[in-house]
């Protein structure tokens, strides 16, 4: 059931025999690249903003993992759901959430989809079916499972892509979600981004197996491991998994082996990793690998990249200035959206009762 793929030759894994990626057309290949570049550029900027103290809280970037982020979430239908973890803020880019709203979210402003409630990296967007996640690891998988259940009940051809890290696989929630999906053959794709660390904890302390994808066998579903720095490999494997899910074939567990370049979050210097390891993985930059791949096919030039970057940066600048102009939420809005009814009166005007009957001795 488990196969490994390496289509564009990042050097991560043994070259696979699967050649299904070879049929991708040029436009698609360039789009995959463009999105990776956009993800990287957006997150580089967010990191700068954080360092400048322009937003509060924390952020969990996926720099180094763009091939997975893009390959896993590109070309989904608006009705398809993305169930993100803390590290999948950039999934909004592929799904289509307007960048200004994304930055308003980072800034905790009124124009954020959640009007300033959730932490910066935890962002949802109802119009495009991106679940507003909590921090609880793997919880979004279980909610996603329920959405997939609803699609199945309603005979809708929509799928749910649930993203999580390899650390999440240790939690009971992860197990319950995958098992439930398998029993009910739900249209789910569980993408496990195995970036070798859960915060500081190496994968060898999470699980005794080498490939997370073998865990699929416990549930009787297909499991596949792909080179997570190879956007073509990720895309191709996802395409197959999505088709299977859409056509009633049930869930897939897709392990994407990759690496985060920086710390777990913006406040983590990541001293628990050695620099040789980091350098090795930086040499396998998914964006550079794709540039080489596209160049071989005459699909990439420095000039084109410059133009792309200029466009992306302009869009980011505009988004940031929108966010910075967006008002802060009003204090008392903290009382809103707890229930379908308002609790403002209840919280703000507590009545005092006085005796209406004469006191007795």
């Amino acid at each position, binding site marked *: 059931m488990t196969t490994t793929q390496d289509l564009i030759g990042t050097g991560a894994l043994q070259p696979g025999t699967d050649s299904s990626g070879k049929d991708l057309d040029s436009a698609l290949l360039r789009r995959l690249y463009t999105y990776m570049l956009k993800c990287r550029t957006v997150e580089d900027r967010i990191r700068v903003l954080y360092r400048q103290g322009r937003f509060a809280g924390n952020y969990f970037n996926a720099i180094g993992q763009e091939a997975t982020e893009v390959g896993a979430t590109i070309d989904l239908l608006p009705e398809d759901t993305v169930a993100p973890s803390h590290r999948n803020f950039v999934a909004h880019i592929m799904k289509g959430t307007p960048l200004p709203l994304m930055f308003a979210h980072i800034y905790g402003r009124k124009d954020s989809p959640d009007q300033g409630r959730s932490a910066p990296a935890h962002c949802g967007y109802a119009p495009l079916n991106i679940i507003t996640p909590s921090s609880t690891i793997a919880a979004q998988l279980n909610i996603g499972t*329920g959405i*997939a259940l609803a699609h199945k009940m309603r005979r809708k051809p929509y799928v749910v892509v649930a993203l999580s890290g390899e650390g999440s696989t240790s939690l009971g929630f992860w197990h319950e979600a995958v098992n439930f999906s398998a029993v009910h053959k739900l249209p789910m794709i569980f993408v496990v981004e195995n970036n070798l660390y859960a915060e500081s904890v190496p994968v060898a302390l999470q699980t005794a197996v080498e490939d997370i994808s073998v865990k699929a066998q416990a549930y009787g579903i297909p499991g596949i491991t792909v080179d997570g720095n190879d956007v073509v490999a990720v895309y191709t494997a996802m395409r197959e998994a999505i088709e299977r899910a859409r056509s009633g074939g049930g869930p897939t567990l897709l392990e994407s082996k990759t690496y985060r370049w920086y710390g777990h979050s913006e406040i983590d210097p990541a001293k628990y990793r050695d620099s040789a390891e980091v350098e090795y993985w930086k040499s396998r930059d998914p964006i550079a690998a794709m540039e080489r791949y596209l160049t071989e096919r005459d699909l990439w030039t420095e000039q084109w990249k410059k133009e792309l970057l200029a466009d992306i940066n302009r869009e980011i600048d505009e988004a940031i200035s929108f966010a910075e102009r967006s008002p802060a939420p009003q204090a008392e809005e903290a009382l809103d959206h*707890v229930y379908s009814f308002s609790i403002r009166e209840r919280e703000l005007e507590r009545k005092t009762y006085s005796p209406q009957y004469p006191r007795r001795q």
Partner: protein
Amino acid sequence: MAVMTYIDAINSALHEEMERDPNVFIIGEDVGKMGGAFKATKGLLEKFGAERVIDSPLAEGAIVSSSIGAAMAGMRPVPEIQFADFITPAMDAITQQAAKLRYRSAGTQTCPITVRVCYGGSVGGGLSHSQSLTSWFIHCPGLIVVAPSTPYDAKGMLKAAIRNDDPVMFFEHKKLYRSLKEEVPKEDYTVPLLKAEVRRKGTDLTAISYGYTLQLTMQAAEAVKEKYGIDVEVVDLRTLAPLDTDAFLNSVAKTSRAVIVHEDNRTLGIGAEVSAVIAEQAFDCLEAPILRVTAPDVPLLPAAAELERFCTISVEKIVDAFERTMEH
């Protein structure tokens, strides 16, 4: 009208709501072929099929969280937790997901689910089939916590819960399931979710309870009426969160005395909140200490009959508290 037990009332509410709205579905352990551990879901599988009456894997977390997702996608799930004692695997789903989803998405993503939970003691269930555990959820903003004490309310509130747009924790007392019968309308009706109910008018003392102990409290009220002519007003909370504070504050403003009765542990049982609300908002009305008649702070409930009896509420214990309050 039809005379119904509490469990029949639940069962018929489920039948009717599933007929009314194709989005309503049931999920839980043994809810299908077996019709539920207590037969609350009897006949549903036969009528609505396995797709709408799902015998789930043994995983309360999956039961609740798959309901949350389905609700987000437009369904109206009614998950069942077989015993409150086994709700722990669903703690994250209930308190971190269901309760907060609306808030954290500023109202753009919501999950109207009704989690039916069988709770309570006094049936010889021992340490793992007797707990209440309502406090965990009462302490969690975003959840509505309901615990009806009569067949009429059970049916009407369950229907209201299913139609409500918030996540509702619907606590059904297992001792009430078959110990109580009542006339229940044949026509469709609902009972508002956020209103307590005065079950007995009185002027001397306000007794506040819910669920099975509401029945005992009513008996105790009759007993002190007969014995001493004391007239107890009995307030049935019905919904434990958000509390209908006006209902019991109005009553205390009239009677000047309050006794709260619940079978849950004393510390941070709902009685603590009711007492604190009274002590804050109706202090000037009070003429006596606010008493709580509750289980002691021990794991509930030890199995041996003698031990169980020591920990559970009886009419005598309530009468004793009434007496002490009146003597003050």
